[in-house]
């Protein structure tokens, strides 16, 4: 079986070309996912089966409303998320899968042509994720609810990791230099320690301070603070990691044209070291950005029940990240990175900056998908709040995943 190896560059012995192997593995994975969804669909109730076609039609109809509103988002998975929430992950997956297939196979004005069908696995996974998060209760948590402890713990973990990051930067630094194995090892260790601090403080805080049952006032206050801290921390960390004096862009100095260094794969041979802003300006910039975003988050979360959206957004962002992970190989491998939609100009700009096919799609997806999914999940959350009792009680999960 010595031919059953992936070809290396210039290899001439029998071997499997890497790209063919990737296509084959992709096909097998997709076939397995479809088979699994078809298998699980056999147990769906009549109410769920009546719901899914309607949800598919909703996906496509909302798409046309968004076009009418001329908003730069898709919102093509509202129905999928809804089914995931009401009827479980597998029903959601079936909805997403069929939506995208029909989107391609029906002559819908302004439809996406052949593109949507290839992204059917992504839509299916969005349905699965929505079902999972609904089961975790994101759609029924109230601002004054003891169940928010888990989300607060996550926020605390992120805050702690950020604190660790700042301490590391202020003391031993976050240095990393190509070819120096010592600094690379140190980088890995420091990163692992920071992540570990985040996880441990998250776990510990979840067990101790966030037992909020019967303390609605505290729950609400904590939730507001958590939303603020999480927003500020994410912005600060993001700016530091990307634009810091020894941050990500610092390492992208055009010295790695093949993009096969440890940090290379994202930007290849582009020289972006000018984006690494020296301290103290860089530090102030990060702090300023964090404070502004934190203040905005605080002001927003305090108003009414807005803090309830925090867990919903966590669900939206994680769903988007999983979706991106599946969508990027498809976009790059099948479409050469260009999907004929409104996001193509962004991809083109990124590639003009020197990013290769996969990198450009990845960055573009990371820019647009989380926003899209956060809005989708928020819209579904609001609509589920207006769901009539008669509908909610028809679905097995309606009672447990939808707000009272």
């Amino acid at each position, binding site marked *: 079986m010595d*031919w059953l190896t992936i070809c290396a560059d210039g290899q001439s012995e*029998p071997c*499997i*070309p890497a790209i*063919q192997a990737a*296509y084959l593995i992709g096909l097998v994975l997709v076939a397995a996912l479809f088979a699994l969804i*078809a298998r699980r*669909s*056999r147990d769906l109730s*009549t*109410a769920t*089966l*009546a719901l899914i*076609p*309607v949800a*598919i*039609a*909703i996906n*496509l*109809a909302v798409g046309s*409303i*968004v076009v*009418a*509103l001329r908003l730069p988002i898709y*919102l093509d998975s509202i*129905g999928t998320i*809804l089914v995931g929430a009401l009827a479980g992950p597998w029903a959601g997956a079936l909805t997403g899968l*069929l939506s995208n297939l*029909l989107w391609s*196979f*029906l*002559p*819908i*004005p302004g439809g996406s*042509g*052949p593109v949507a*069908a290839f992204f059917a696995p992504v839509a299916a996974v969005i349905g699965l994720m929505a079902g999972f998060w609904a089961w975790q209760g994101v759609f029924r948590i109230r601002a004054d609810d003891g169940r928010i402890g888990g989300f607060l713990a996550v926020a605390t973990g992120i805050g702690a990791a950020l604190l660790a990051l700042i301490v590391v930067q202020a003391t031993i630094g976050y240095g990393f230099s190509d070819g120096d194995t010592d600094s690379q090892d140190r980088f890995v260790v420091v990163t692992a320690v920071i992540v570990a601090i985040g996880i441990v403080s998250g776990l510990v805080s979840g067990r101790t301070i966030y037992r909020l049952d019967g303390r609605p006032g505290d729950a609400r206050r904590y939730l507001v603070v958590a939303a603020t801290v999480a927003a500020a921390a994410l912005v600060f960390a993001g700016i530091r990691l990307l634009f810091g004096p020894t941050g990500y862009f610092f390492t992208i100095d055009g010295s790695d044209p*093949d*993009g096969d260094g440890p940090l290379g794969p994202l930007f290849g*041979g582009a020289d972006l070291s000018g984006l690494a802003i020296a301290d103290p300006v860089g530090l102030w910039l990060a702090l300023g950005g964090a404070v502004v975003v934190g203040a905005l988050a605080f002001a927003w979360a305090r108003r009414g029940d807005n803090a309830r959206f925090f867990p919903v957004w966590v669900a939206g962002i994680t769903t988007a990240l999983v979706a991106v992970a599946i969508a990027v190989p498809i976009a790059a491998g*099948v*479409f*050469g990175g*260009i999907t*004929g939609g409104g996001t193509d100009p962004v991809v*083109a700009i990124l*590639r*003009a900056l*020197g990013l*290769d*096919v996969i990198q450009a799609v990845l960055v573009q997806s990371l820019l647009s998908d989380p926003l899209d999914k956060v*809005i989708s999940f928020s*819209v579904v959350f*609001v*609509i589920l709040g*207006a*769901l*009539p009792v008669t*509908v909610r009680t*028809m679905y097995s999960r309606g009672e447990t995943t939808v707000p009272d």
Partner: protein
Amino acid sequence: MSATTGYYIPGDSWLHARHPLTKLLGVGFILLAAFLLPPIFLAPIATGLLVLALTAGLLAATVRALRIPAVLLASIVAINAVLYPGASDPWLALGPFTLTGEGLTFGLVSAGRLLTVFLAAILFLFTTLADDLMEALVARGVSHRIAFVVLSAVQLVPRMQVRAGAILEAQQARGLSVRGSPARRLRALVPLIGPVVLGSLVDVRERTFALEARGFGAGSHRTAYRLVIDPPIDRWLRWGLGAASTAVVVGALLGVGR
């Protein structure tokens, strides 16, 4: 042609007469061939598909349908040709754009693969009614519940598009503004999407009852009314397509024509 038959073109060509699963297997084979065979095969396969369309009297319709992926395919070729970082054979540079042979090849191959799959799919859609396909799949063991979901969605999609338009009108008639700043348009989302979703969900309750009244949830035994003709030659065609697909996969594993 009604709104719910999709791309189907009524006819009695030899392609129409094939069993839906034969044609589905054909599309599957083309998909495998397009992505697993070396790109040099793409042009012959696409030409072959056009010849198929010609013999079935669908060439004109097929060529007309090419405007659906036209923008997509053109963008794939154009953007890859002039923006392909890492290419080692620049032909012409203009500002941020560099025309490269590698980029052009990559764009052409990507677009060619899509075009081939598109041709196969559109011929399938032109000659196959969703109802027949689903009945054929159910006869081969796919759950009739999935078939129901697909066929029902095919019928509901055009109706829901109409309803979305009606809701847009109705909410504007209540003073909802759908113009203005992005934030304002974003706020219009819930008043517009809300009725789409909630109104449909209330219908779902009645539709569930109606399905129960028609014995949909009654049991797993089911007979089929729609007869899907399966000529003897289709059996041979399916064996042939199955063998060809296997050959393509094995060929890819062996790295043929690399």
